[in-house]
């Protein structure tokens, strides 16, 4: 039961993280000379992006720690099933998820400081990289859980 709660909270934190990081990344895209105020995309990117970086760091860390705490159960219950089914690509996808998540964790201090100090090339680069990591981790986690869940 505790594992199920952990997995659900892990997923919910990931959703919050996805939303925040996507809004922030899209706010970095070049603005149109004449923006149409009521368009969905204009509204989607019109966020106070610099205020998102602290919540993003907190939710990334929470999502990471929750994932790290339920990982042993994946190793014992889910991965052997993937091995029996000869699903090397599923094992590989989870491996990539965990390794990219770890690299993303190491980037958080630099990411946060680049937004605080408005270091434009660094904040662009790290925000888009973290976005790629978070989207991949979210989608691969869901697909893998559909194949064989905890």
């Amino acid at each position: 039961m505790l594992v199920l709660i952990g997995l659900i909270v892990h997923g919910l934190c990931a959703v919050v993280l996805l939303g925040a990081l996507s809004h922030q990344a899209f706010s970095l895209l070049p603005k149109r000379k004449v923006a149409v105020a009521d368009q969905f995309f204009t509204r989607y990117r019109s966020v106070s992006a610099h205020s998102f970086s602290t919540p993003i760091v907190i939710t990334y860390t929470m999502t990471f720690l929750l994932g790290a705490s339920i990982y042993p159960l994946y190793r014992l219950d889910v991965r052997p099933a993937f091995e029996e089914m000869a699903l090397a690509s599923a094992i590989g996808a989870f491996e990539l998820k965990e390794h990219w998540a770890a690299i993303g964790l190491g980037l958080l201090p630099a990411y946060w400081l680049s937004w605080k100090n408005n270091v434009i090339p660094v904040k662009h680069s790290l925000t888009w990289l973290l976005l790629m990591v978070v989207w991949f981790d979210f989608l691969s986690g869901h697909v893998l859980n559909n194949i064989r869940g905890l």
Partner: protein
Amino acid sequence: MVSRFSYWFAVLFSVLYPALLAVDWHWGLYYPLESQWRWSLDDTMHGPAMQWYGLIAAAGIAAVVMASSLAVFKRSEGVALKAVSLIPWLGACWTVWLLAPFFGL
């Protein structure tokens, strides 16, 4: 100094992590079936050994030590800022390349 340290840490961690993954070096293993930690493979333990936690610890500690040494030099900030925009992307790509055999590549 904190900024320089953070940028250097990001650069070094994003390279050290896949490098240690490539050579299969880590700082400890966790055996989830027995809830025990070991420094290296132990034939007396049952179940699989997890290296991920040890890998993060090894890369993190090495990156902290190296970044602390580099952050002392003020002149290194320019190099750190250029590197941190590019190197983490290369680290992510290197990780994909290391895992390519899982996808039949």
